[in-house]
């Protein structure tokens, strides 16, 4: 086990009493509680953590935060594994296992690094051109590309973790828990309004965690702790650390991902949420999202040991780690001098390469007074790297315009380079929310301009280019007050006295693409502006030469900003390169819009509860417990679980269905029809409404009588059917198909509320009020007679009528209607009695050998009689005439919904697809539903396709297979022999018949 060679003396934010052992590429290392994987590795002297996406170049840790483009690792193993996790965000825990990505056989010697030698084959847009010719070779290329493409491995086992998801509401949501955010939360919290403060790091404090300055005379880390403990004491303030706000949508709706228990390790947290997705509706939002340091681009700037200057400060001041002994800071501004001073404070060797010609001011004086060497007006033109570590750099003097280097090369030995090209406000969320951005010439960055009209957002701190701590804190305070005030709370506007000391910064030199010893794109070195996707400034030159010169094209052609880091450190430098090449200003080039999520979300977090048993509701009828006991096999009908058939012993579905169908026609069968949609209609205009909704006439339906009806949409196409019964003078009971229940209810309500508001009709859904047992078969009357006092003889209770009475001592509505063609009663009882009714019917039916049957048998039985199933034999393009149901379409009625469309040219064509029966040559052959019917089978397509099979069964009562099909001009094809093309290349000859197979 290695010693932590880069660990410093002071505690910083670590708990030095708690050592933690973790594993990287099968080697054990020790860090402390409070370390990230990145800081733990750096403390142990490990810089090389993986290989790059395209060229498999060795890569190290580049940042200390969520903007990390490089240090992506495979976290954990087997079912717990996750690819592309940023080492800079993973908190270490005992036993953590991580692996480098994109390396084979090892990260130090990687086979794919050969790509680097053949990099001319992998230029920008290489996906689009290298492998395009000849086309037939794609199959060969694809394997190679698949192997190259993507980083990491997806887990192959189900994720054992639980992911939570919740809604939340607040008056003020503050994004970012740095100094501005803390001040905003304090101000808003004191007003009494509901506040959520969210920060992506596991500790609040933001950039202050990487500082060592004093605030009001106390160390800034102590200031954070006391502020946070005061916020924790406020019951109206919710503090969410480890919580990244990843999306900002309309009307202040934001999505945040909280890594609740991940830091405890995967195995401990199986029963508590690993992550929680917050769906937050905030009245007002304060964005205190800070800024991300902007790199400079130079020759071979991607080598391990090169990182942002601010990251070095984080590792020193937060993680007590100095990632090198001999350091160089490369900067175009003053802020990076802090890093140099910190390094010197910790006893490290440091020199500064300042690309400015004559930097001056207090920062420079501080550095000089500490004896730090400042090399002015120089560029890095080469990087010496070997065996996992940075060894040296080469520098040369810059020409006056900064576009070339002059003079002699100088070699500096060093093992760490910190870069700073200034700061970039983090305005991704603002842009996501459709806020407009503007380019700020003095700060050389994009800033928030106009927020979207339907969001209420205030920015505070460095996310709007406010660079001094005191100003950030004052802005935070003001933003918190303002947001609370907008939410209707009164605030005490006075803020505490803040003393942070004041430093004067000089101007930066607006140069980010530093010249190398060869023109960019030539020679052996590469200028990477985009580390995540391995895109170079040379690629930008190439893209422009090939005509991809707009920002949107450039982005896609070079894949700049399209990695999982969304180009947080690369987008602006790409724009700079493009603006230099095209000689246009950045505002003239424009910027691409940022899209959610700000950082990647795990699939688990998005899914939350909505998987497994809770993926979709499983609607069950009151009789379901009986079905379970009777070994029902279920079918999904809408969200309902309906028994498809009841399996006896080792019976197959086919055998069970044949048995059930025979039994129903022989003696009696019982079907759970509770799922049918039911609508109670009351009011004197109900009859008028029924006349509009259905194709037939409802004027003469007497009380106690039932009628079948077909419902059309305004296109004249069938969309539902069912039986409606007149319960009383102005009271009707409508039934719909199971799947169409909600649609029909909505259809009726919409007409009533919007088109015919003066109609006196009230519609109430009663689907689940009633449990329905459908008793079918020649012995139905005998069975029912034993349980009811309702007279059942033909005269007192004829077909298509309804009687109310007691069945099995339960108040019931009994409908004499039939979907099997047999004598049948649909017995409706209040749902709570459904199970009891069913059990008694089965009990009494036993001596008649009653058979419970499922939906599959129901389908066969109705098909034998030629009854259609809406949604199976129709598909929304079928008129009543197409299915041969002209008999139900009233000629008398002036108008009903859909009627006018019958006269449309297309609807009145005579050769439309029409419903017919099909009988196969081989009576034992069951045609597959959906198969195509053709006039003549040819050896290969195209063939003259006439239509398709909608229903197909083996009918035990006819003793052969039957099928229903929708065929072009089908009515005229009756008696003809056609063919059905089968998947296996064979075909089956069929004769076209009437779709009614069983006439009794």
């Amino acid at each position, binding site marked *: 086990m290695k010693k932590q060679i880069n660990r410093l003396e002071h505690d910083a934010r670590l708990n030095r009493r708690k050592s933690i052992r973790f594993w990287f590429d099968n080697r054990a290392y020790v860090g402390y509680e409070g370390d990230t994987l990145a800081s733990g590795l750096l403390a142990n002297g490990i810089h090389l953590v993986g290989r790059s996406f395209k060229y498999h170049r060795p890569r190290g840790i580049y940042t200390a935060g969520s903007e990390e483009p490089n240090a992506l690792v495979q976290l954990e193993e087997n079912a717990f594994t996750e690819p592309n996790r940023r080492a800079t965000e993973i908190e270490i825990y005992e036993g953590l296992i991580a692996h480098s990505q994109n390396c084979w056989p090892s990260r130090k010697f990687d086979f794919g690094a050969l790509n680097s030698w053949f990099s001319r084959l992998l230029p920008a847009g290489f996906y689009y051109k290298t492998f395009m010719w000849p086309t037939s070779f794609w199959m060969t290329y694809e394997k190679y590309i698949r192997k190259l493409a993507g980083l990491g491995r997806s887990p192959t086992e189900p994720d054992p973790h*639980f992911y*939570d*998801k*919740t*809604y*939340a*509401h607040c008056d003020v949501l503050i994004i970012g828990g740095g100094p501005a955010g803390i001040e905003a939360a304090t101000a808003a919290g004191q007003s009494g309004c*509901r506040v959520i403060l969210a920060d992506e790091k596991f500790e609040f404090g933001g950039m202050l965690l990487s500082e060592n300055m004093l605030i009001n005379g106390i160390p800034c880390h102590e200031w954070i702790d006391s502020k946070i403990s005061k916020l924790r004491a406020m019951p109206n303030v919710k503090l969410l650390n480890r919580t990244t706000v990843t999306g900002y949508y309309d009307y202040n709706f934001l999505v945040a991902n909280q890594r609740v228990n991940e830091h405890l390790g995967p195995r401990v947290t199986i*029963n*508590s*949420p690993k992550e929680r997705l917050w*769906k937050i*509706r905030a009245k007002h939002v304060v964005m205190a999202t800070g800024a991300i340091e902007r790199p400079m681009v130079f020759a071979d700037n991607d080598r391990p040991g090169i990182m942002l200057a601010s990251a070095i400060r984080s590792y020193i001041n937060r993680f007590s780690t100095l990632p090198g002994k001999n350091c160089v800071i490369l900067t175009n501004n003053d802020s990076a001098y802090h890093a140099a001073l910190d390094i010197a404070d910790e006893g490290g060797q440091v020199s500064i390469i300042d690309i400015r010609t004559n930097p001056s001011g207090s920062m420079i004086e501080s550095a000089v007074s500490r004896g730090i060497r400042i090399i002015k007006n120089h560029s890095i033109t080469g990087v010496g790297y070997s065996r996992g570590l940075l060894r040296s750099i080469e520098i040369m003097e810059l020409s006056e315009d900064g576009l070339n280097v002059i003079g002699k090369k100088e070699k500096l030995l060093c093992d760490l380079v910190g870069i700073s090209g200034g700061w970039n406000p983090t305005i991704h969320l603002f842009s996501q929310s459709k806020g407009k951005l503007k380019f700020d010439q003095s700060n050389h960055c994009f800033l928030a301009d106009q927020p979207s009209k339907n969001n209420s957002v205030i920015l505070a701190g460095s996310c709007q280019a406010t660079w001094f701590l005191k100003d950030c804190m004052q802005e935070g305070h003001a933003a918190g007050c303002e947001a609370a005030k907008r939410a209707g709370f009164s605030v005490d506007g006075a803020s505490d006295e803040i003393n942070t000391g004041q430093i004067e910064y000089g101007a930066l030199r607006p140069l980010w693409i530093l010249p190398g010893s060869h023109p960019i794109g030539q020679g052996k070195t590469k200028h990477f502006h985009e580390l995540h996707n391995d895109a170079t400034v040379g690629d930008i030159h190439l893209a422009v030469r090939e005509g991809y010169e707009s920002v949107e094209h450039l982005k896609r052609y070079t894949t700049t900003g399209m990695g999982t880091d969304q180009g947080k450190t690369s987008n602006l430098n790409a724009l700079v390169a493009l603006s230099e090449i095209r000689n246009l200003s950045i505002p003239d080039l424009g910027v691409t819009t940022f899209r959610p999520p700000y950082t990647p979300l795990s699939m688990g977090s998005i899914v939350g*509860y*909505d998987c497994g*048993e*809770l993926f*979709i*509701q*499983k*609607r*069950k*009828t*009151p009789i379901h*417990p009986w079905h379970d006991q009777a070994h029902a096999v279920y079918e999904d009908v809408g*969200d*309902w679980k309906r028994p498809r058939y009841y399996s006896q012993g080792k019976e197959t579905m086919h055998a069970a269905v044949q048995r059930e169908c025979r039994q129903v026609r022989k003696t009696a069968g019982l079907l759970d029809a509770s799922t049918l949609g039911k609508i*109670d209609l*009351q*009011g*004197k205009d109900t009859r008028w409404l029924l006349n509009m909704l259905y194709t037939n006439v409802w004027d003469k339906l007497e009380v106690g009588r039932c009628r079948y009806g077909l419902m059309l949409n305004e296109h004249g196409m069938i969309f539902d059917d069912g039986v409606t019964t007149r319960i009383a003078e102005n009271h009707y009971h409508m039934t719909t198909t199971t799947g169409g229940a909600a649609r029909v209810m909505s259809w009726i309500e919409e007409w009533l509320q919007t088109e015919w508001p003066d109609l*006196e009709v*009230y519609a*109430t*859904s*009663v*689907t*689940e*009020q*009633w*449990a329905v047992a459908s008793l079918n078969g020649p012995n139905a009357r005998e069975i029912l007679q034993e349980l009811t006092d309702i007279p059942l003889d033909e005269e007192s209770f004829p077909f298509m009528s309804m009687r109310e009475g007691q069945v099995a001592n339960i108040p019931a509505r009994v409908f004499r209607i039939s979907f099997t063609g047999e004598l049948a009663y649909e017995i409706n009882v*209040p*749902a*709570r*009695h*459904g*199970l*009891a009714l069913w059990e008694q019917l089965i009990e009494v039916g036993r001596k008649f050998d009653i058979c419970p049957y499922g939906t599959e048998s129901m389908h066969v039985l109705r098909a034998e009689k030629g009854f259609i199933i809406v949604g199976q034999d129709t598909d929304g393009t079928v008129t009543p005439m197409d299915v041969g149901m002209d008999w139900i379409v009233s000629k008398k009625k002036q108008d009903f919904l859909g009627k006018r469309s019958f006269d449309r040219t297309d609807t009145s064509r005579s050769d439309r697809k029409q419903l017919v029966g099909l009988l196969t040559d081989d009576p034992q052959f069951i045609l597959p539903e959906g198969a195509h019917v053709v006039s003549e089978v040819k050896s290969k397509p195209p063939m003259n396709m006439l239509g398709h099979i909608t229903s197909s069964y083996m009918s035990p009562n006819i003793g052969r297979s039957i099928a229903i099909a929708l065929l072009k001009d089908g009515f005229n094809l009756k008696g003809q022999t056609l063919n059905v093309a089968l998947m296996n290349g064979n075909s089956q000859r069929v004769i076209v018949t009437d779709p009614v197979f069983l006439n009794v």
Partner: protein
Amino acid sequence: MTTSPLWDRPPITGKNILTELSICGKINIRGSINHSRFQSSVNEAFGLDLPLNPNTLVRVDHLTCYWLGPDEWLVHCPIEKLDSMIELGRAKLAKIHHALVDVSDYYTVLRMEGPDSEILLAKSCPLDLHLSNFPVETCAQTRFGNASILLDRRSQGSIFDIQVRWSYAEYVWDYLTKAIQTL
């Protein structure tokens, strides 16, 4: 023997309690408040004034009346009084366009009770359940996951009654149970 959607589930007990309440009578009332005698006739029949504001309810003796829509209400009553109430209501409203529909079995009522009840419901209910937005003795028709629900905050504050359709009850129950187990 009668059953309910969750008749075979024992209550979830502990710090937070989830139970299915035993059945009560439920009458869906439709009618127009623009009709001069509609409200008074309902009052004559049931002895209560219909709540006229959205998201409100009225409790009188053993009855609770919820606002469901501008012409729609729901009355909860003891199940044994249901038939006589509907009969009386139909008699009193005979001359007025109305509908009284028995929906006692259509819905069941789950009770979520305990210090975390608000947090648990917020898992899948988009409504702001904070007391300042959803005070005691108010109600709202909203959503829990895929289920439409009628939510009613009882006077104790941490007790919520969730009215849900029979066939969605198991889904809501299982969802809340999972949420309770993983708090």
